[in-house]
């Protein structure tokens, strides 16, 4: 039978994490992410790892902090309300320069909201998952194969840049199945973790993992140093995919599940003779600013399609320096648009 296996997105992330050497997983159930934890609970004991259900999302993220501080590849996952609870912990992880992978299988909000797919945590993920000057790398897979690949990538990025990396998915990507190929992929060269707190064995000076700096100037220096790393990430780690943008007059910008629907819409538009194209950011932070800016020179208008009330649209405007108009089309609260709705919007912009 096929080398590929049919898997839920949640499961593919879990499997890819295990293959990437994730040794510890700390979770807390929440729909539509729960199968990820369940896969881990089933697999980890047989594959040299440990999966533990924490008493809360807060405990989970702090277990991640501890495990990471002591050197392990570690992951946690949740969905929107649970991610909000992790905010303080994530800010500490950033402030302590610790690597880890965090999965957000987004659902409708605010509040308890609903449990259907959404992309309304974009602002939170890209701007402010916690207090203070901080970012995390945010990856947005659009299919199950990518759920797997980007998860592996996430662990490497985390270790290289000593930063948390978020897989920003949604209920549809978490719950749907597609074929996945887990064939080995080249692994990056990783820095040695000399900063780890796992007992100095009297062989090295003690290590401290800490985010407190009583002297403001020291804290400022830390922040500047970290933002220099962000700059490097922006220079070297931006990922995106494009479809029919070469001659496009209207470019739809969409990521994740929405990008797939938009792609169908672009096909429908092309069939009507509208020169539409698709730009799909794969890294949401760093955002593909340069590429979009260049694209803006030849494109007439952009359409940001999101499962929210309008969030990524700001980043597009900033990226293209308002050179061209950017419109928003969104469904929110867990509603997924059909391609025809996006087509309608494309048509309207094509006049």
């Amino acid at each position: 039978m096929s080398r590929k296996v049919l898997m839920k997105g949640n499961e593919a992330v879990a499997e890819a994490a295990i293959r990437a050497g994730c040794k510890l997983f700390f979770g807390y159930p929440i729909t539509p992410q729960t199968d990820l934890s369940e896969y881990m609970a089933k697999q980890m004991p047989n594959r040299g790892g440990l999966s533990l259900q924490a008493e809360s999302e807060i405990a989970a993220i702090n277990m991640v902090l501890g495990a990471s501080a002591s050197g392990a590849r570690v992951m946690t996952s949740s969905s929107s309300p649970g991610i909000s609870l992790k905010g303080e912990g994530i800010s500490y992880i950033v402030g302590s320069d610790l690597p880890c992978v965090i999965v957000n299988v987004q659902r409708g909000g605010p509040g308890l909201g609903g449990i259907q797919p959404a992309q309304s945590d974009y602002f939170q993920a890209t701007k402010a998952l916690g207090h203070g000057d901080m970012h995390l790398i945010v990856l947005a897979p659009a299919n199950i194969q990518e759920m797997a690949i980007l998860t592996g990538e996430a662990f490497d990025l985390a270790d290289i840049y000593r930063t948390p990396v978020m897989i920003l998915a949604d209920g549809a990507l978490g719950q749907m199945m597609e074929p996945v190929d887990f064939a080995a992929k080249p692994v990056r060269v990783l820095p040695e973790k000399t900063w780890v707190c796992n007992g100095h064995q009297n062989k090295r000076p003690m290590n401290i993992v800490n985010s407190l700096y009583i002297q403001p100037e020291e804290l400022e220096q830390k922040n500047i140093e970290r933002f220099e790393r962000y700059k490097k990430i922006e220079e070297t780690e931006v990922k995106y995919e494009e479809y029919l943008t070469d001659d496009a007059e209207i470019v739809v910008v969409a990521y994740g599940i929405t990008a797939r629907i938009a792609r169908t819409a672009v096909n429908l538009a092309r069939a009507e003779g509208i020169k539409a194209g698709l730009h799909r950011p794969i890294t949401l932070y760093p955002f593909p600013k340069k590429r979009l800016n260049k694209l803006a020179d030849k494109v007439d208008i952009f359409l940001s399609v999101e499962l929210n009330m309008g969030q990524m649209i700001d980043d597009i405007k900033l990226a293209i320096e308002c050179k061209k108009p950017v419109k928003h089309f969104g469904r929110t609260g867990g509603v997924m648009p059909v391609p025809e709705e996006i087509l309608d919007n494309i048509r309207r912009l094509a006049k």
Partner: protein
Amino acid sequence: MSNFLFAGFGGQGILFSGKLLAKVGLELDKQVSWLPSYGPEMRGGTANCSVIVNDEPIGSPLVTKPDVLLVLNLPSFEKFEHTVIKNGIMIVDSSLVEKKTVRTDIKAYYIPASMLASDNDLAGLANIIMFGQMLKAIKLFDYSLVEAVLVHSTPKSKPQLAELNKKALSLGYNYQA
């Protein structure tokens, strides 16, 4: 014919049937996707799943206008009957759904799958019987491939189950109203 919708009560094997179809697509090296409906009301509420088997990359995994609709209960019949595309196909478990479609632009197959299942000691396999009927109706997939995938999908530890499944598939395939 690439968009399939399987709908019924939770516990009727809806998700399994959908997965079977997706696996068949996978073996044919097609693009496939499978998306369950999920909610806090899995408890006896309706369950459905969207399956797409296609040559093109799949956009939305959500099937809102099925080419083929398999229906195992009345609420689903009423909810989805009108969504089937023109010239589409509908397979109905007539032992659970007494209604007939009013639409004349689709082809409907009525098979008393649940009854057939209980009559033939195939408890819980109405979904596979329905699947067999669908196979016949859509004429897209090689029977023996489907059978092989089906066998492969049943736990190795329960070989009798594979046989029962094969029987159910064939029963459905060969049933004529």
